[in-house]
């Protein structure tokens, strides 16, 4: 599975707005780059990213070839309860990757 790096606070106060940073390894081949013969290398990108907080979707992104290689995405959410933040990336050629981190909310 592709390597992913998540940066989210392990602890937060209830109601606090927290920042979540995500980084995943993926070439994001655009489909516009010509190979040695001049033919374009076929597109192979991550197309979708979803973050769920205890199973509830809190953030979703649709990615296009213009997203740089090794996609970096940061966003915010309100810390509502303790539990799990889960992350899922899907893309061309059946690409999938998942990651999750726990959060304690006082």
């Amino acid at each position, binding site marked *: 599975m592709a390597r992913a790096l998540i940066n989210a606070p392990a602890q937060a106060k209830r109601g606090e707005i927290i920042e979540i940073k995500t980084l995943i390894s993926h070439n994001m081949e655009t489909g516009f780059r010509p190979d040695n013969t001049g033919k374009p290398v076929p597109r192979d990108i991550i197309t979708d990213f979803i973050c769920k907080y205890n199973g509830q979707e809190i953030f979703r992104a649709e*990615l*296009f070839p213009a997203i740089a290689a090794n996609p970096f995405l940061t966003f915010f959410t309100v810390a509502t309860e303790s539990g799990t933040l889960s992350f899922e990336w899907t893309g061309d050629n059946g690409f999938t990757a998942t990651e999750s981190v726990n959060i304690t909310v006082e």
Partner: protein
Amino acid sequence: MTRDDDMLQATRRRFLLETAALAGAVGIAVPLGVKPASATPASMRAAIRKVVGEAPLNKGKVKIDVPPLIENGNAVPLTVSCESPMTADDHVKAIHVFAEKNPQPNVVSVQLGPRSGRATVSTRIRLADSQKVIAIAQMRDGSFWSGEAEVVVTLAACLEGV
């Protein structure tokens, strides 16, 4: 192959197209292996219309943070932030980002909600050339707001050969 080669290819193709047009394009075979890799402001407007429809596009409430001078168009840091209380009744539902001169105008679309707390998103994008980047926020009340930024993209020296 490098992006530099992409741009050279695009320029070469455009040159061939233009000379073919000038020459009347009679019996001149223009060797095009690949589709012209360059969006036009028209294709970006079409992509925007797909999102906004016939609704008015208001300027404001959306700020784009991007360095005005980019060292390398392969990884440009971009932050879009929208003014909004992000309550159940008044929040940003979605942010759509477009680039005027990339081969494809769409960059990223994100879905937000009252649980987001803040309508701010950051990522790194590819920009094929110096151009305008536009971000459109879709509000819960159905209104659309936009912000834009002009970016100059330079290139590193000493690139990679084949």
